[in-house]
Each structure stands twice: as C-alpha cells, then as structure tokens.
C-alpha cells in the first residue's frame, strides 16, 4: 500500500482525541472553535489598506523555503496539541503529512507499507514509546530521515534516542533553524 496523493489524517489507533476533528480530510486546519477573524472584513482590509503607513505584505524572510518535490512526513506525538502543531508547521512548509498519537500505530503504519521522507517522533508515547518504536521502524529497513522531537532533555535521553536510530535529537520546540536545513536536504536543494 502506497500513500495516495490525498493523504488523510489517519491514526491506526482506535480512539481519536476530540480536537483531532479540527483537521480536514487532507490535514489542513479547519476554522475551529477559535473566534475566527471576520472573513468579510479581512477581504476588505486587503483591498483598502488606506492606513497611511507602509504596511505591505510580509517580506520574504530567510525562514522561507519553497519545496521543489513532493515530500511526505509522519508526526508521532502523544500530545494532541504538539502533534497537530507539528503537522500544521510541516504543512505550512508544503509537506503532505499524517500523524499518529502512539508508537504502536507508527510501527503498524510503516509495517503496512506506508513510506515517508521524514518522521518526527516524540520519546514519551503511549502504548509503545518512541525509542522502541524507532528501533522497530529502523529494523524494518526504513532509511528515511527521523527526528526525535521531544520535551525530554538530558544526555542520557539523547544517547538512547540516537542509539535507537533517530538522525537528530531535537528538544522541543522544533524551530526553523533545525527544520529548514533538513527540508533543504530532503528536497535536494543542498
């Protein structure tokens, strides 16, 4: 089974957290329970920014990267918020993403034949932890880029996760200074 063009926010585990419904079919953020900015006014604002100042569109920053290839990513994080945030960030950079909230689901997904260019995986995960899940994923022959993205800090954790097979140990939050070089490399831009 290979990934189809439209990647769904799928989880192989049975119980989806409530907030996960905030994502649409292809993983984009829906208008959520957040007090959404009045879309009509926003349209008007774009048209008449007669505000007297030089408030133009955001300039191109060094943080931006434009992907040339279709890249896919899996986010494995037991915390609802972090999982959705990391997915959102990757999507904003242009990747197609999936996510699961435990290590066992991640292993199952890979075992079923799903392929990813990038995997972000947390250390503390329900059912099967990140270290063991990484070991098993690597044991299946997956050579993709794996970043251990975790709130854990400490040399011992770092060594353990690297030994299990992650390419990089990243303390949360995952920032552009780490992510962008990785994406450039995956995209063949280096």
């Amino acid at each position, binding site marked *: 089974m290979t990934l189809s063009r439209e990647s769904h926010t799928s989880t192989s585990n049975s119980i989806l957290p409530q907030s996960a419904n905030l994502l649409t079919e292809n993983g984009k*953020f829906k208008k959520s329970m*957040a007090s959404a900015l*009045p879309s009509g006014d926003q349209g008007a*604002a774009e048209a008449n920014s007669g505000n007297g100042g030089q*408030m133009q569109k955001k300039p191109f920053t060094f943080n931006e990267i434009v992907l040339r290839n279709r890249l896919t990513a899996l986010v494995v994080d037991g915390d*609802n918020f972090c999982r959705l*945030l990391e997915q959102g960030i990757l999507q904003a950079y242009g990747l197609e993403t999936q996510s699961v909230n435990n290590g066992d689901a991640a292993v199952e997904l890979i075992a079923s034949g799903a392929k990813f260019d990038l995997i972000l995986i947390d250390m*503390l995960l329900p059912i099967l932890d990140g270290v063991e899940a990484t070991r098993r994923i690597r044991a299946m022959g997956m050579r993709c880029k794996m970043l251990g993205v975790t709130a854990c800090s400490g040399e011992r954790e770092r060594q353990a996760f690297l030994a299990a097979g992650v390419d990089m140990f990243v303390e949360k939050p995952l920032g552009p200074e780490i992510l962008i070089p990785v994406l450039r490399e995956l995209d063949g831009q280096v």
Partner: protein
Amino acid sequence: MDLVKLQRQLVDYRDSLYHECFLDEQFTQLQELQDENNPDFVVEVVSLFFEDSERLLNELTKALEQQSIDFKRVDAHVHQLKGSSSSIGAQRVQKSCIAFRNYCEEQNVEGCLTCLQLVRQEYYLVKSKLEALFKLEQQILSAGGSIPI
C-alpha cells in the same frame, strides 16, 4: 481610536510580551507560517493550546488531590505541558514546568502544589495577553488596516 494609533499600540504591546518573556521566537515562527493559505493559523493553534493546557491543568489538580499521589502520572502531564508551551513560545509557562518536574522527581507534594499554582498563574497570564493581542489585531482589521509586521 484611529488606525495608526491602533497599529502602534499593537506593535508596542507585542514587543512588551517578548520583552517580558511571555513569548519567544517560537511564537514568531508561528506568525511567519501564517499566510493567505493559512490565514488563521496562529489563532487556531493558540486556541488548541488553550484547550490542551486547561485539560492538563485539570488533570494535574485531580492527580495531586489523590490520597496516594502517582508522581509518574503527574510528571507525564507536566512533561506534556512543558512540550506544548515551548512549542507555542509561552516561555514562562515552560520554565515553570521545569521546576515542577524537579519536585515530581523528589516526590515533594508541597513543592508540586506550589508549582501547580505557579504554572496555572503563568498560563492564565499568557492566555489573557494573547487574547488581548488577538483583540487588537481584530480591531485593526475591522478598521480596514493590516497587521504591522
């Protein structure tokens, strides 16, 4: 209040949030990821953070009320909160979680209760700051202006 004044107010307010360490560069990254394809990215992500954090704070309160406290469970919740607050750039919340985890390790109930209070305080502070920031943004947009960078 006229538009230029509102925009000035927003810039000053936002600067103060960074200056007082309520927010850090991680929040900046989130703002930079917002564009016309993802116009409400920041507001949505922040709302998720509020929901997630309040759930965790409730869990922590319950866990610390138990006769026999499961410190591993408490630590797991604080760990989550540390991760999510750092991911959104809520620096002060993140830092207060670090102290909390130390008390968990020591199985110090008093310490944990004090930290919980502190974390809760910091969380509600940053929540009200962010809500004020979004309100200012909304006022500017309603007045026909755009958000200063």
